[in-house]
Structures are given as C-alpha cells and as structure tokens.
C-alpha cells in the first residue's frame, strides 16, 4: 500500500489572493487535485497527505482532505522527512497540479522492481532555450544527476516530471535527505539549470552573469520545443520539492530508476491554459490500447513475436472481457497440449497434423495467459509457478505423445519412426540441462555486488565531481571475454543479427514451432533429431558466450 504525499504549494499568478495551481479546473466540475485524488483512490492508494501553506490549507480542508500545514519550503521538507522516517510503505511524492494518465500512475505505483524511481521524459536542450522543468541526466535507465533551482546538471538529456516514488529501505535515505535539505533551505544560491561539459567554474560565473540571467527571467521560454506549446511552457514560481528530494537522493548515492512516459501524459499544469491542454493530451491517448500493447512482452523470440503476439492480444482482450483469469487460460493451455499429445500418440498422419495444430494453439494460449495477467494486472505467485511449470509440462508431454505414436505406427508408414524413446529421453534431458544453465547463470549473475554510487554534497552547485577524468576515453575491448561482450552489444543494434541470435538459441516459440512442423510434415524421429541437433548447437553457442562473459 502506497502513501501519497501531494505538495500543493504552487500558486497561479501574483496578487492579493493567489489561487493554487492544484485548484485549477480540470473539466467542468473538477479540479486538478480532485482528479488526482480520484485517480489515486481508483488505484488503491487511499492514504494521502496534502502539504499546503497555512493560508490555503483552510480552503483545501473544506473539501474534507487531510492537510498538513507548513510555513515555507523548510517546513515542507521537514514534514516529508517525518513521513518518510515513519513510513513502512512506499511513498509517492508529487505536485498537486500534476495531470497524469491513470495508466502511467498505475504502472509507476506498482513498479516494485526499483526501490526508488522518478517519472522522466527524454528531451534535448538547445543552447538558447531554458527548460521550464527540472533537468536530469539519465544513463542506462538510472538517474545519474538531477537538478533543481539550486543544483546544476551537466549535459542533461531528460526532464523530471515531478513524480517520485521511494520504497523502503530507501525511505530512510529520503528522510535524511529531506531533513538535510530543510536545513539548507534559503541558504543555497540559484543556479542556471544546465552546465555544458568542459565549462569550468570561473567560466560558469561569467556565463551566469551575462547571457543566462536574462533567460532565467523567462524571456526565451516560449521557444520550448514541446508538441503542444500550452503544455509545460510555464516555469513554476515556487520551489520544486520533488525535484529537491530527487536531487538529494541521487546525490546521496541512491539508485533512482528513470521511468519514461512513452506516449502517456504526465505534466504539471501551472496555468488555466496548461490545465486545458493537459486534459486534452490525457484524453487523446487510448489508455486501454496502451495497456494492451504493453501487455505483449517486448523481448520475445522471433516466432512468438510474429506468429503469435501479432494477434494474441485480441484473445487476451476477449479473455479479459469474459472475466477469465490468467490461471484459467494457463490450465486450458495445458489441457490443449495434453489433447495434442493424445493425437500425437495415435500414430497416424492425421494424428500428427491435428496434434501439431493443437500444440501451436496451446502455445498461443500460453502467451495469452501472460498478456492477460499483465493487461488485467492479476499477478500471483501461484499463477507464475503454474505458468512456468505447465510450459515445461506441455513440452514434455508432447515428447511422450510423439514417442508413443512413433512406436505404435504401423511399420513402413511414413509416421513410423521406430523406437524413439531414447531420443525423447535425450531431448528432454538436454532441454532441462539447457534451462539449468540459464537458471544457474542467472543466479550467479545477480550475485554481483553493485558498486556504490558516487555521493555529492547538496551544497555543491554543480555535478562536476561526476565528470570523467581528463583523457578517459572508451577503451577498446581487451581479451576474449571483453570482446564477446562488445560483439554481443554491437550485434544487438543490427535487427537481422539480433533476430538471428534469438532464433539460434532455440527459445520456446521456435521449439514449439519446430515440434509442430517436423511432426506434421515428417515424423517423431525427425522431430527429436532436429531438437537434439539444434539444441546442442544452441547450448554450445550460449555456453561459449557465457563462459567468455564470466571470465571477462
């Protein structure tokens, strides 16, 4: 269960009665904050704290919300430090004026893999344009450096969208960071957000004095390259608490994962125009379609991608509408595979062809169950086990069916492959050993102790301490292992070779296709010989690569 901390301190315009951005209208009868709270409630996040200034707290409290009153930035941070210190659950920290697609928020909240993560969007930052949102530098899906009004980022490549999630045990780091930042509040100097590599400190001083000062006033922000000029064009007036916390976490050496928005929306709306534009952007996206697309696993094999996943999402959607559970689909899939094995065992050509078709559909259903689970977000340990175990069961029951069929087929018929039980045993043993190589290598790979990340003081205005030392260039691969890794990474970028590499290792889709085709066209003996030859080659290929990698 997540605790949402919503910062509602940003105001619209100046004057005697500045309205809150969180109170901007969202549609005819809702505000940004109300919409956000509704979304959070629908995502099973009932625990919400709103941080607001004393003068506006009464306004918010009128709506029956739990509001924490603060006087200033230091107060905001102290309150968050307190919440983080007592947190036993993940914390979601965001602005009250954030307009975010439900699908994005749902994914972000349930992203249990990373202990800390932030919503970011890739961007380029031309010299003459000043970003209106906090900038970050992302490397390999990790935020390497984060910026705030007081912290500069060297060569940023993304913006922080103002939504941060921190789960235990990193909530302790968050508490420390928030407390330290609260102490520093008011004592840090404002910095231009971007530092170009190679700029040294004294050059920066000049840089600030001349050109950029004008930009900070907002004269050139209109040129921000966004698709909808009304989206994210305004720079916030107040302090950006999530950005400060993100900067603090990253500088404290916490591993913060960058989570992109893709085509979903996550924008702060600071004016009425922006609120309208953000709502239009959210409604322009078919979130159901996005979720369905994402349910199809991206990293599948060639056969699975083209001969199954290209249409299996239709079945997944149908199953979802029929309220079938993933476990039901998994069980049906196993049942179909057993029927396929029975047909294989008949020892006739018809039996082999019908069995082959049924085995293919058993595999299709096997893909559907995972897609259905991701689409409907129904995950369970039992389901995961059932899926994995039945995958193996389906394959080996097909082996047994084929072996029986080959033996009972009349002598001289094209179906008769003789006694192929030995081949069946060999194929099963080989496949299991190949899987064990994967499992063991995976367990050993995960064991690698991660290097601690660099720590930067919050008082440092820029992140120059992270600069690569002069003369450090990307070294050419040395040794066989390095060469193997280098080669592997290079070939990933070539689509043809990437597919070839995937097919060569005989993944599950290719195996099922091989079994079905060779059995339908020839007989069980051909199937097993093909499985053995391909399997041995695949085993040698993966083992070679992994041994070299391990020695690198």
């Amino acid at each position, binding site marked *: 269960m997540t605790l949402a901390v919503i910062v509602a301190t940003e105001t619209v315009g100046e004057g005697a009665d500045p309205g809150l951005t969180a109170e901007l209208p969202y549609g005819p009868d809702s505000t940004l904050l109300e919409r956000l709270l509704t979304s959070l409630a629908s995502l099973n996040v009932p625990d919400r704290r709103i941080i607001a200034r004393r003068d506006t707290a009464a306004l918010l409290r009128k709506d029956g919300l739990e509001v924490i009153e603060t006087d200033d930035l230091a107060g905001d941070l102290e309150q968050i430090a307190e919440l983080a210190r007592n947190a036993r659950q993940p914390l979601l920290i965001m602005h009250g004026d954030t307009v975010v697609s439900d699908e994005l928020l749902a994914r972000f909240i349930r992203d249990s893999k990373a202990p800390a993560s932030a919503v970011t969007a890739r961007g380029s930052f031309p010299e003459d344009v000043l970003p209106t949102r906090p900038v970050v530098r992302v490397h390999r899906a990790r935020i390497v450096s984060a910026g705030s009004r007081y912290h500069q980022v060297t060569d940023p490549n993304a913006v922080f969208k103002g939504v941060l999630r921190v789960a235990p045990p990193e909530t302790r780091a968050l508490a420390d960071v928030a407390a330290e930042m609260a102490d520093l509040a008011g004592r840090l100097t404002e910095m231009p957000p971007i530092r170009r590599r190679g700029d040294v400190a004294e050059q920066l001083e000049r840089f600030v004095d001349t050109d950029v000062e004008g930009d900070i006033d907002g004269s050139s922000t209109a040129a921000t390259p966004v698709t909808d000029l009304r989206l994210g064009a305004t720079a916030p007036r107040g302090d950006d608490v999530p950005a400060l916390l993100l900067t603090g976490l990253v500088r404290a050496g916490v591993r913060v994962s960058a989570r992109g928005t893709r085509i979903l929306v996550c924008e702060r709306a600071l004016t009425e125009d922006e609120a309208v534009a953000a709502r239009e952007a959210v409604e322009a996206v078919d979130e159901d379609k996005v979720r369905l697309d994402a349910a199809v696993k991206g990293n599948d094999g060639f056969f699975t991608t083209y001969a199954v996943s290209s249409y299996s999402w239709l079945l997944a959607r149908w199953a979802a509408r029929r309220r079938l559970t993933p476990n039901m689909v998994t069980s049906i899939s196993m049942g179909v595979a057993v029927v396929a094995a029975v047909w294989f065992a008949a020892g006739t050509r018809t039996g082999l062809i019908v069995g082959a078709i049924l085995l293919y559909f058993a595999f299709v259903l096997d893909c559907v169950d995972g897609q259905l689970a991701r689409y409907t977000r129904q995950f369970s340990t039992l389901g995961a086990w059932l899926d994995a*175990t039945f995958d193996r069961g389906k394959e080996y029951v097909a082996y047994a069916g084929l072996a029986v069929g080959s033996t009972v087929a009349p002598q001289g018929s094209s179906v008769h492959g003789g006694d192929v*039980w030995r081949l069946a045993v060999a194929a099963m043993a080989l496949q299991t050993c190949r899987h064990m190589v994967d499992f063991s290598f995976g367990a050993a790979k995960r064991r690698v102790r991660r290097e601690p990340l660099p720590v930067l003081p919050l008082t440092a205005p820029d992140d120059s301490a992270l600069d690569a030392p002069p003369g450090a260039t990307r070294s050419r691969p040395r040794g066989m292992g390095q060469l193997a890794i280098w080669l592997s990474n290079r070939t990933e970028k070539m689509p043809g070779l990437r597919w070839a590499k995937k097919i060569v290792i005989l*993944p599950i889709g290719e195996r099922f296709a091989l079994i079905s085709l060779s059995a339908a066209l020839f007989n069980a003996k051909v199937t097993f010989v093909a499985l053995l030859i391909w399997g041995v080659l695949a085993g040698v290929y993966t083992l070679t690569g992994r041994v070299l990698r391990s020695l690198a």
Partner: protein
Amino acid sequence: MTTTANDSVAYHTSRLVAYRDDGLIAQTLGRLAQGILPPLAPALVAAGITIVLVLADVGVEATPALFAPVVALLLTGPASTHPHDGPLDWLVPPLIRGIEYGYLAALGFAQDVSEPLIFVLIAVLAYHHYDTVYRTRQRLWPQPWVFRAGLGWDGRMLVAAIAAFAGIAPLAYAALAAYLGVLFGIESVYTWTRTGRGEGVMVDLEDEEEVGS
C-alpha cells in the same frame, strides 16, 4: 523487508547451492570438507569419467558404469558446502544434472529398463529441479527434508547402480519414479496452493531466462 547487498549475495549463493540438489551423503562429505574444495574442476572430471565409464560399459559383461556414482560422489560431493563463488561455478549445477540424467538414462538403457519408464523417471526429476528453481526465485524455499527424502542426485544414482548390480534395475526405476513422483508432486502442489494465492505482487518469472524459456 530490508535487503542489503550482502543479503542479496547470500540469497543467490544459496540458490545456486540448492540447484545442486545434494543428498545426505554429498552433504556429509561437504561438511567434512568444510567448503574448502572448489566445485568446478572436480565436477568437470566427474562428468568426463562418467561419460568414459558409461561408454566403456556398452557391450561388456563386467559393468564399470556401476562405479560412476561413487566416482562422481567422491569428486563432487565434498564441494557441496562451497559458496560457489568462482567465476564459472554456475556451471556446476547443470553439470551435475547432466551427470545424473545421462547416467540414469544410459544405465537404464543398458539394463533393459522399459524406455517409457526411464522417460517418466527423468521427467519426475526434471519436475523437481524446475520446481526448486521456480520456488527459490520467489523465496519459497523447499524444506530441507524434501531434499533429503528426495535422496539427492547422489542417492538416486547409487540406488540405481546398486539395483543394477543386483539385477533389479527395472524394479528400482519403477519404485524411484513412483516414490519421487508422489513425494515431489504432492509436496510441491501442497506448498504452492497453500502459499500461492497471496496478494499479487508483480512476479516476473521470465526474468533470468535469457534463452526465452
């Protein structure tokens, strides 16, 4: 739940050791060796010797293959307490699987055990080994008694070898398949159905299967 980097290392280490599926004898040898002996080189030698003994067995009256389990056990057993932290030590569990499956299959064929029965026995073992992997990934460790009651790879190979020596290999294979099938099947289904319906967290089993299963 607080997981430090060291916890995580220990967790993956014990997974690798659990994948070995050692029986009582191998564990005892391991305790004697106190984790000093490295696992990889002896396992490779054991695999080589097993292959040679099994091949030498073909068509010969005397049965050198019967000694393969003893050789494999003496070589691989003492490393059962080793942390398996060498760069290539991940090769050991699959090597042990290769030795076990290969030996049981070859011995069964040589002793005229019904071939479907051999298939069933190895399928039962494969089920147990997959199940161990799928469980430990979700931190549902099998109870130690399951490994002991399952005899371990060493125990199973010895039972098969002794039965072959006594000329009752078919009986032993049938008994092993039936006993282990009931043991592993019932125990794992019972555990999974009891614990598996918990609140669904995102569980990605395909995580480390680079081969794409």
